[in-house]
Each structure stands twice: as C-alpha cells, then as structure tokens.
C-alpha cells in the first residue's frame, strides 16, 4: 500500500490502463512533453511514446472529434480538457455527435473526456466551473465526479473500460489536498453506484466531489448538537443511483442536497423531483438545497467564498431541516 494524492491516483489509473491495453491512448493539450497542466499525465509520454500520448493544437472540438473517430477503430481514447471549463468549446461535438451515436446508428464511442473542474482555488470565472449539468441533460453520457483518491482511480479505470462516452470530472481542489493509501493491485469502482460515507438517522445529506468532504465536516458539527446526518457520496451523476438515495431517505425522512454547481438546474432539483415522485410519503420536511449562488464563479477570494457552499451554510440548512 502506497499513500498517493488524488492527482497521482488519476495518473496511476491512466498509466496502468495504458500499460495493460494498447488500445488506450491519451489526447489533449500539453499532455505529452509537459505532462499536463496539472501533471496528471506526467511520465506517460516517456513510457508510451508519441503515438499514444498526443499533444494537440488548442482545438477542443478537434480533440473530441478525433478521439471519437479513433474509438471507431477499436481504440479507447482518453481526451483531456486542460480545464473542464473548455468543454464548452466542444459542446456540439459532444452532445450532438458523440452522445447520440449509439442510440442513432449503433455506434458506441468508448471515450473518456476528463479534466480538472471546480472552484475553491481562486481560478476565476473561466477556470473554476462545474459544468456537469450541461451534459446530464444529454442522453448518452455517463458522468462521473469522484471525491476520494481511491474512487478517482477505480472509477477512471472503470470509465476507460466502459463502452460509452464518459465525462470524468476531477475536482482540482482535491488534487493535492487528499492523500490515501491505495492497493497495489488492479481494482475498479463500478459506475452508477453511490456510497454512504457516514451513517446517520436524522437526515440525509446527498453530495459529491469536494462538497462531499464539506458535508462530512458539517455532519461532525451537527453530531455535537445531537443531529446524526447520513452523508451520501453520489460518485456517478449519470446514471444516478436513485436506490441508495431512496433507501437513506426512507430511513431518515429528510433530505438536504449539497453541490458546488449553481442552484438553478443543478442536480439537487432533479434529486428533489425523484424524492417527490418516489418517496413523497416518507418525507417529513422539504428537500432543501445548499449550492453555489446563481452567478458566474467570481475571482476575489472573498467573493468566491461567498459564492461557494461551506460547512457553516450546510450546518444551518441541516438545523432548519431537522426541526421538521
């Protein structure tokens, strides 16, 4: 067992999959000689060569298009967005071409599009996005957003082996802040399965990625006041593990959804609707949301802090919910 960062877990997943399967290639901006803007592909070029680690022009649509074309001949390309914010540049290629291929003409595109996402590191409005919901509304994708190094590695490996296009979001706040001991042997974490990170009986907090840790922190503070919160880490947003959420809410009868994405159209709304459809009689209170503000991600640390959810905001919302 070796202790590695979240970032190193990502690198290991790519390295091991490329070592095990010659059909796995990496394509993106500065992924080769430079090893990626965050060094997630450090050492891959050295090991696997120019044909498998491909530095491209600054052309996100071309990166996605080429990765898709490669997959048609049996390859399993990993396409890196230098920052996930730039996925907007290839929105058309992804939503209209890649996502629809299997449904329309029986053409699966086993590609993984991955990149650093999320705020909290003062990246400003164009390097801090959580754009997952743009794609959750597009049938055909799987969407993964891990919160721990163990999951990051296991889910990325599962994503590479999956036969569908997978959007893999890596919260850059976690890249070097989390460390975990990982097994030396090969393992995967299945897509579409949430996990209960903390058990509790009074209310359920559903979250993912960096906010999962913030939710856990709030849960500890709540415990000191006698409120035991159950914390669910979604891990995969699409397909969404409805059963794990329902099972928890049927026990606690209360649900709070926490995410870093902005509020309107965020996944909290979707989860809320699912609960009303499938667990209406189990609910003892409203489904509450703690999310970022409905604004662009601001730059100044004071503004960004105000924009983001934090443990204090979660704590306050949970206290309110617990009163029901």
């Amino acid at each position: 067992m070796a202790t590695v960062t979240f970032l190193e877990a990502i690198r290991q997943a790519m390295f091991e999959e490329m070592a095990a399967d010659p059909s796995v290639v990496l394509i993106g901006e500065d992924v080769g000689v430079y090893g990626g803007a965050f060094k997630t592909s450090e050492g891959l070029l050295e090991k696997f060569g120019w044909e498998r680690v491909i530095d491209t022009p600054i052309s996100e649509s071309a990166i996605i298009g080429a990765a898709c074309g490669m997959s048609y001949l049996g390859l399993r390309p990993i396409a890196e967005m230098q920052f996930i914010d730039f996925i907007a540049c290839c929105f058309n290629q992804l939503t209209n071409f890649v996502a629809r291929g299997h449904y329309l003409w029986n053409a699966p595109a086993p590609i993984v599009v991955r990149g650093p996402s999320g705020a909290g590191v003062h990246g400003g409005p164009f390097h801090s996005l959580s754009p997952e919901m743009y794609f959750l509304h597009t049938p055909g994708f799987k969407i993964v957003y891990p919160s721990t190094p163990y999951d990051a590695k296991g889910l990325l490996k599962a994503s590479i082996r999956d036969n569908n296009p997978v959007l893999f979001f890596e919260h850059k706040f976690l890249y070097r802040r989390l460390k975990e001991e990982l097994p030396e042997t090969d393992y995967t974490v299945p897509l579409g399965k949430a996990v209960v990170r903390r058990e509790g009986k009074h209310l359920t907090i559903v979250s993912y990625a960096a906010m999962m840790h913030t939710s856990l922190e709030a849960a500890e503070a709540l415990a000191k006041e006698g409120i035991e919160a159950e914390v669910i880490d979604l891990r995969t947003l699409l397909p969404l593990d409805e059963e794990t959420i329902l099972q928890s809410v049927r026990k606690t009868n209360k649900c709070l959804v926490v995410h870093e994405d902005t509020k309107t159209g965020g996944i909290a709304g979707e989860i809320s609707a699912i609960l009303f459809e499938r667990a209406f009689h189990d609910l003892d209170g409203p489904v509450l949301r703690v999310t970022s503000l409905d604004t662009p991600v601001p730059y100044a640390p004071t503004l960004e802090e105000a924009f983001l959810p934090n443990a204090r905001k979660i704590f306050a919302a949970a206290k309110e919910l617990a009163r029901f």
Partner: protein
Amino acid sequence: MPATQTATKLKLSRQQYLDLYYFMRLNREVEDTMTRLFRQNKIVGGLYSSLGQEAVSVGSAYALEKKDWMAPMIRNIGALLVKGVPPRDIFTQHMAKYTSPTKGKDGTSHFGDLENLHIVSPISMLGDLIPVLTGVAMAGRYLGQKIVSMTWIGDGGSSTGVFHEGMNLAASQKAPFILVLENNQWAYSTPVRRQVPIENLADRAKAYGIASYIVDGNDVVAMYSTAKEAVERARSGEGPILIEAKTFRRRGHAQHDPAEYVPPAQREYWEKRDPIAIYEKSLNTEKILDAKGKQEIESKITALLEKEREFAENSPFPPPEFASQGVYCTGDDCHKIRPKWERPIAEVMPPKSSVEPVWAVEGFGHGKSANRENAPIHFGDTQQQASEPTEAKSTPKSAAKPPAGKAAPAKSAARGKARR
C-alpha cells in the same frame, strides 16, 4: 507552401469507365425514385437532392479501397452506393422504416457501418466529421492499417469553426485524410461569394500547409483521377489533402425550396453541363457505351430499384417501445469492435514505445527533459495558505485539510469488496 494542383486524367479500364457511369445513373435514379416517393408523402422528413453533383460523390468515393473509411454528407448518396450500401438502405432511411440501418431512429444519409463498410454517419452540424475522420485516419495509422479516410463538406460548411480545427489537427498530425470540398455555389440561399470572399476555396489549404487540388466536379473521370492521386499521396504519408470540386446545386436546399434566388442564367449554364449527359457522350465517342449497353444498364437499375423500393414500402415503422431503447451500450454485444492490429503491438508498448519526453526545436536543439517531481500547479496551492480563514471549520477549504481523516470513510464496504 504547396500551390493548388490539377491532376492528370487517368486512363481507366473499360469496366472502370462503365462502373462510373453505372453509379452516376444509379445515384440519379435512386434520387428520382425518392422524389416520387416524396410527392406521394412517403418520405418522412426532408429530401435533399444532389442533382448535377453525382460526379463528385461517385468519382471521389470510387478512389477508395474497401478497407478505407468515409463519412458522407447529405448530398453524397452516390458515395454510399459506391462504397457498397444497397439502395434499400437509402429508401428505408428516408421512409423511417424499422428495416433501415438506424431502425427509424434517424433519416436521410445519417447512418453508418463501422464493422463492414467503414462508413461514419454524418450529423446535421456541418464540419463535425472533419476531426472525426481525422481521428479515424490517426487510429488506422496507429494500428498499422494503411487506410485513408475521406469526407465531404460544402462551400457553406467550410465556414464553420470545426472545419478549421479539424483541418489544422489533420495537418499537424499528417493524417491520411482527404477532404472533398464540394463547392456547389450555394449554401441554402446564400451564394458562395457572400460566405467566403476568396476565389478558390482550395486556397484554404495553404493556411494548413497541405496540398490541394481544384477539379471540375462535373467531370467524373477528372474527379476520380484527382481523388485517386490524392488518396495515394495520403496513403504514402504525405498528410491530408483538400480537393475543391467546382459544381452546382441544381435543386433547392431541399424539396420544399424552389431556389428562386438563383439567377436563371446561372442555372442554365450548369444545366448544359450535366455530368451524366457529358460523360455519356464521351463514352459514346470512345465506343465504350452504345445504345444497347445503355439499355442494359437502365434495365438493371430499374429492376433493382423496383425491388428495393417495394421492400422499403412494405417495411413497417419501428414499434413505439423501441423509442426508449439503445441510449447506452450495455452488455458485451453492443461493442464488437476490436482493434485490428497490422503491426506488432510491441512497438506501441514499453519498452519499445519509450521516448525521451522533450521537444527538439530545429536549429536550437533540445529543451530540458522530464523529472518534474515538484512542478507547481498553475495556481491555487500557493494562495491557499494565505487565504486560510480563521474560522476554518466553516469553510470548504478546510474540509480536505486533514486529508487522511476525511478520506477515511472511503474505506467502506464498497472498498473492502474491491480490494484483493
């Protein structure tokens, strides 16, 4: 910078000359049949005509080998036929039948065949196929297959951003990729001069440092000869090639469009240059085709299309419950594509694949090589400490501060199971 070229017309075998004639006639008859079906309300959506552009589709696709890949656009029915698609697939697609290649999920030429014919389906957003076919070409080269990929784009589609991104990637990768730029003078109702203010669209190749050709798109032998030369050059490793075929869209954008915006004189000029009539005349002169031969080809096409049309008309629509199926590829049956290696895999695996990760800049030698264990990330970490608020417990930043503790819940049941 390579200048735009013209290819020398090739001398073909008698069979090749007749093939080109057959496929152009088949292309036109398939579309005429569909026009009749459209008027009978049997085509579900729009119908897009390639009348007068048959030589472009047929001549260019005829230059591809079976192993090569292509992606047609909406007006490349002829290319589909040449690559081996049966007319029934085109009829059933347009009629949204369950027997169509997409089983009624999409129409027109929007279908493909990854396993046998190596055809990638187009979508309506123009230019998207350029990077996709570039990727196909790169993968083919990676696997050692020596394939060429080809797609088409109109004068209109050449203004999209992804056209540029795709061509530039193809050029920087020297991908064995051919783009046939079908300049039919009109993008829906807007003439080419109002879209692209340059004389020859082939000149765009100069911006990518790649070779280009200009060809009379209404001369099928010239079209084929040009495509053949380009395909061979691309296959030999010269990189992507752009072919501008000058032609004319004789019908409107689709059936509903009478195209009254086209000056009558321009239409008359091009109607006199019908690619099939011109070619037939030359085949008569060269004594390759006589009245009897023509009759035989026509009978063959009529009989074939009668059968294919009947099959399509008698086919059912897809059952409603089919609408919810197939968004994901689940199970092992839906992804049967295995990479066909035609080079030793060892070449792309360590230790053979290992390289020194460093750029060599011509005239300046090498940069500094890897081993960047302590390379800083762009930003964030450096400012992290300074901005750490005193009320640490209530901020997200502190959430992951004691990482070992926070990640500890990951050691849950799920994890235990995965561990070996």
